[in-house]
């Protein structure tokens, strides 16, 4: 219960941060990738602001046995670097750049421009389903 409530707080602050930083605006995000055009460096300032508290958080994680509200940290492995990672990230970059939308801003933008945001999210869900049912290796028993 407390964990779920904290998730809502985290998601809400995350969404507000996306809106305040201008990252909910696809045209602005796309302009960051448009280095040969009217380049907009805003995204770099957003990343700097976001990485700062998270870097401190990772230092705290190293000194703690468990998170405050749960039994253990569920942190993903930091290696190995495989073909799936590279291919997935490469594809994601292409899709991201077509419109200037990645998953967080797309979902947050539901509050600002619901119709195009919903279209993007529905297509994203279809993509995630294609990955789940066609591109996920079956686990051997």
């Amino acid at each position: 219960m407390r964990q779920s409530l904290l998730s809502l707080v985290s998601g809400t602050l995350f969404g507000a941060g996306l809106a305040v930083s201008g990252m909910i605006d696809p045209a602005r995000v796309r302009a960051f990738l448009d280095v040969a055009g009217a380049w907009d460096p805003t995204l770099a300032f957003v990343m700097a602001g976001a990485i700062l508290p998270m870097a401190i958080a990772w230092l705290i994680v190293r000194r703690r046995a468990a998170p405050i509200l749960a039994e253990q940290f569920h942190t993903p492995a930091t290696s190995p670097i495989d073909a799936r990672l590279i291919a997935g990230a490469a594809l994601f970059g292409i899709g991201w750049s077509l419109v200037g939308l990645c998953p967080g801003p797309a979902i947050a933008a539901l509050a600002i421009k619901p119709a195009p945001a919903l279209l993007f999210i529905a297509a994203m869900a279809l993509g995630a389903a294609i990955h789940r049912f066609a591109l996920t290796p079956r686990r051997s028993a």
Partner: protein
Amino acid sequence: MPGFPHAMPFAGFIGGLMIGVAAAIMLLGNGRIAGVSGMFARVLGLSEGGAPWMMALLFTAGLPLGAALAAANVDVEARFPTSLGLIAVAGLIVGIGTRLGAGCTSGHGVCGLSRLSPRSIVATGTFMATGIATVTLMRLAGVVS
């Protein structure tokens, strides 16, 4: 900002801090990575493992809630391209790519880079590179998004 009339360095940094604190709350409180593509797939039942369903749902639902609260206090723009086909194709590629690569700008970009994770550094460098390459190729080909 000199030379970049449309840039918002201050608002960007403040909003970035909010995003980073939000991710830190998730990590230090619940022990989970605030990765949006993973949470989204979890909500849809399309991921193996990951955060508990209710946790993923409330985090995901918080995103538009937070954006609405921000828009009630400051000017918030969301300029989409007019082509619905382009939006759909982009969403589809983002959906496949983020799941195959196990993360997006939040999981790899914010949470992974701050951890100096080799996987996330490679992933972020890769999606930045293909993103810049795609926009530049579209510009050279005269395609306006």
